[in-house]
């Protein structure tokens, strides 16, 4: 199925979880936050949050800014 991560299309398997995505993107050690279809997914829920076809996911971090 297809999901959108930070605006880019990704083809992933059924039952692909938020945790799977973090591993795929090698962000395990990064300080991030995730939003799926405008809803925050708490870090504690990554392993049991399964994506649906067409989900729009944003993964963000803190960077320099004024």
């Amino acid at each position, binding site marked *: 199925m297809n999901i959108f991560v930070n605006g880019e299309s990704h083809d992933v398997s059924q039952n692909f979880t938020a945790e799977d995505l973090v591993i795929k993107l090698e962000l395990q050690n990064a300080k991030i*936050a995730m939003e799926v279809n*405008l809803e925050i997914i708490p870090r504690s829920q990554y392993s049991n949050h399964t994506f649906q076809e067409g989900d729009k996911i944003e*993964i963000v971090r803190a960077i320099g800014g004024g």
Partner: protein
Amino acid sequence: MSTTDTFTIAGKTYSSRLLVGSGKYKDLEETVKATDASGSEIMTVAIRRTNIGQNPDEASLTDVLPPSKITYLPNTAMCYTAEDAIRTCRLARELLDGHNLVKLEVLGDEKTLYPDVDQTYVALETLVKEGFEVMVYTNDDPIAAKRLEEMGAVAVMPLAAPIGSGLGIRNPYNIRTIIQNANVPILVDAGVGTASDAAIAMELGCDGVLMNTAIAGAKDPVLMASAMKKAIEAGREAFLAGRIPKKQYASASSPIDGTFF
């Protein structure tokens, strides 16, 4: 300066009245050096998409200046709607393990980066309900500043001049009026260009000044950070000391009595 001259935002006490941004530096090393030289205890950060292609071993801001070392103030920079600003704050809170302190800015126009005060009210109302402690960027408008305070802002931060303009305090009488009316800390945010601008803000009675470009955009950001630290302290001491009134004519400093000529 007396170590007891502190100020409090959302229940936490700070001794440095200089708040800094972490954008526009040439690299992280310069960010760390300038931030250290500024003596700041609060640093704004932006919330942005992770760089998908990034090397996972590469250092990030959160590694080199961790929240354990300096209070993070996530901002909503480049948000033009209340909705985007609220989303950004929610993501920041999740990212920073429940940290509630945020800087709200909702912009109205790309050319001036002036605040959209209507959207700022809308966002603030929701954020306060959701338990955020919100420092709010706004116009140098005393009515708007008071309303933001009454809505629950923990600090109100009027601009000195447009963001990144370096024009200094364009409307000192409004800033003073805002300070005189306020029951929450008032910080000048945006528009400071050099050390004297920061000193003027503090002499007006501001609780602090937030700046980014004035330091990061200087030829020597680390030296400018040090200059700003001193200017903030000097301006604060001058405010507490109480300046002499301005007069049109001279007033001799040496005694008139006892002259022998």
